[in-house]
């Protein structure tokens, strides 16, 4: 089956004066039509760089150094810039984290909305304006006829993020990448924006890549989850698999370390020991090994391969291999073989 987006062994490196930073160190995942994929990880784990690499909007000194990104079966890496431009903003579009700085302060929001529409469709100025108003109405902005003549500074944070969403959806993309769309917003406004995104996703049927560090947002929005640490994927799978049967120590640690609001007796949080890894001096083996409670000798010297640990659940952790859980990704009947696997790890679900 052909996936809508197929990322394979993607590698992106920043060539900084102090050394090479492997921001994304060979990751693979697929996205199907109409699905919501969440990428979760801490700052510096490479989740935004993954998004920028898919769209090829990396800034100097970052460069994609290997791997492939296939969209509708067509390779995107290495195609000429003018072809990429037809994809970007048209078929794959992005919402940035900070709605305050990603809108141009000297153009009206109508002007910025129409720019994308005129660039990617055959509409003339009048039709583009109509489309812009229609889009603003779709994202729940009142009096859109008035709003298109306003500037970004006249709108609140939540309104600006709605404008960003309208802009990203104006050309009816197949994939919408949302890079921390609600991090800069308050909880009640975040609830509004998430509701809007779920609504629009159902209405328009696009696929969404949701990048966030908030496990709550992931649980609310996503069908599938990718957990990243230090530019690598720890594990990926369906949301219930990742939340209830995590098979990587990092995911378990993350789930344990967030305070649970349902908890009335004040149980102590269990933090992940140590500090995030320095990307300039990545350890040789698994990047999480220095902080991992169950780290073994092999973890320090070799990076664990991806293993099917259940159907629809892939993890990269030596503990699974050692405990004979799962089947190698490349093995014959990998996913089917994974069907018979007994799933453990329920203890971390709470």
């Amino acid at each position, binding site marked *: 089956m052909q996936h809508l987006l197929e990322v394979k062994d993607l590698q992106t490196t920043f060539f900084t004066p102090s050394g090479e930073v492997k921001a994304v160190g060979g990751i693979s995942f697929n996205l199907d039509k109409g699905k919501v994929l969440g990428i979760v990880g*801490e*700052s510096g784990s490479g989740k935004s760089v993954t998004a920028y690499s898919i769209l090829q909007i990396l800034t100097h000194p970052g460069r994609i150094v290997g791997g492939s990104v296939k969209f509708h079966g067509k390779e995107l890496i290495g195609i000429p810039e003018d072809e990429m431009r037809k994809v970007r903003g048209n078929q794959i579009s992005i919402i940035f984290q900070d709605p305050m700085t990603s809108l141009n302060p000297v153009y009206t929001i109508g002007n910025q909305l129409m720019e994308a529409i005129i660039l990617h469709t055959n509409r003339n100025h009048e039709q583009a304006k109509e489309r812009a108003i229609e889009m603003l109405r779709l994202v729940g902005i009142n009096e859109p006829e008035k709003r298109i003549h306003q500037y970004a500074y006249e709108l*609140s944070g*939540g*309104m600006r993020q709605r404008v960003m969403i309208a802009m990203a959806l104006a050309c009816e993309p197949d994939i919408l990448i949302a890079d921390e769309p609600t991090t800069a917003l*308050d*909880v*009640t*406004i*975040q*609830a*509004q924006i*998430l*509701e809007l995104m779920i609504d629009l996703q159902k209405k328009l049927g696009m696929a969404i890549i949701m990048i966030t*560090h*908030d*496990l*709550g*947002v*992931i*649980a*609310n929005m996503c069908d599938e989850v990718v957990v990243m640490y230090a530019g690598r994927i720890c594990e990926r799978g369906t*949301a*219930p698999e990742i*939340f*209830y049967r995590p098979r990587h120590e990092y995911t378990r*640690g*993350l*789930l344990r*370390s*967030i*305070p*649970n*609001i349902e*908890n*009335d007796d*004040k149980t*102590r*949080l*269990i*933090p*992940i*020991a140590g*500090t*995030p890894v320095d990307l300039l001096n990545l350890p040789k083996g698994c990047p999480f090994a220095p902080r991992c409670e169950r780290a073994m000798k092999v973890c320090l010297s070799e990076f664990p391969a991806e293993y099917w640990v259940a159907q629809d659940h892939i993890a990269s952790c030596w503990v699974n291999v050692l405990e004979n859980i799962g089947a190698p990704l490349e093995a014959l009947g990998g996913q089917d073989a994974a069907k018979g696997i007994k799933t453990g790890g329920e203890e971390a679900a709470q």
Partner: protein
Amino acid sequence: MSETKAFQPDPQYLVQVRGLKEYFPISTGFTQTTMLKAVDDVSFDIKKGETLGLVGESGCGKTTVGRTMLHLYKPTAGEIWFGGKKIEKGPVMTEFRKKAQLVFQDPYSSLNPRMTVGDIIAEPIDVHKLCANKKERSERIQALLTMVGLSSEHATRYAHEFSGGQRQRIGIARALASNPAFIVCDEPVSALDVSIQAQVLNMLEDLQKQLGLTYLFIAHDLSVVKHISDRIAVMYLGRMVELASSNELHHNPLHPYTISLLSAIPAPDPDKAKQQKRIVLKGDIPSPLHAPSGCPFRTRCSRCTAICAQVNPEFLEVSPKHFVACHNL
């Protein structure tokens, strides 16, 4: 204001705040100034050894409450009582400055990049002349560094050499330097990653037990506040709308704003998320410069009636130790 004059401090409370107001003049024209009511008539008490959580969205005045309480801003009106004494100019203030400290939100901009970590931590010691000689001072720095889980050789390094979590530890060590009794933690973990956040929260709890500290914990993340606080106060547009013990507030929220705030938190659990009924508030937070008349929440409230536009509801104790400001409970 006969009531405030008759105010007698209650010895079981370390901090008591009565009718605190903080207005900022904002120029709104060539000759015009409008008063921005950042904090408008807020009263509360904090027991010794207790943690009071203060939540609200951006612009609700929670940081201003923390800073005005510490007299970093001069209060427009209201009284702050600390350990049975009213805080005013003079020797009481000097003592108060020593006993009440602040941990800042942003661990990047709150540490001087030109000072060594040792000097940053020792600044309160130097200001209040708490150490007699250099040896004593450096011993104190070492002790403070160990207390927050850093090692003593870190004293000679500069802030930029540390990660966000470590910087926040430095900020906490600085706050502890003058042996305070009360610390205002202004969003101490919101700039940190989840895995580091848990480390810092645990450390704050340990320090509280060890040193008998009292915290005012300001944050926008309700699950973090619920975890660390004994009681929680909810603010909206410069006013306190609800105050109750943290479990009571979670299970039995009474103010419509608290109810929607609680329902807006996305549960980190896919099954629960599906069942979760969100009450999505309409509209944005009004500008505090043009706050609505009467109850500040009425423009977004589902229970709004005619009286809400006219009279600001009083902050009343509706059940034991549960205060709410709402006309339509």
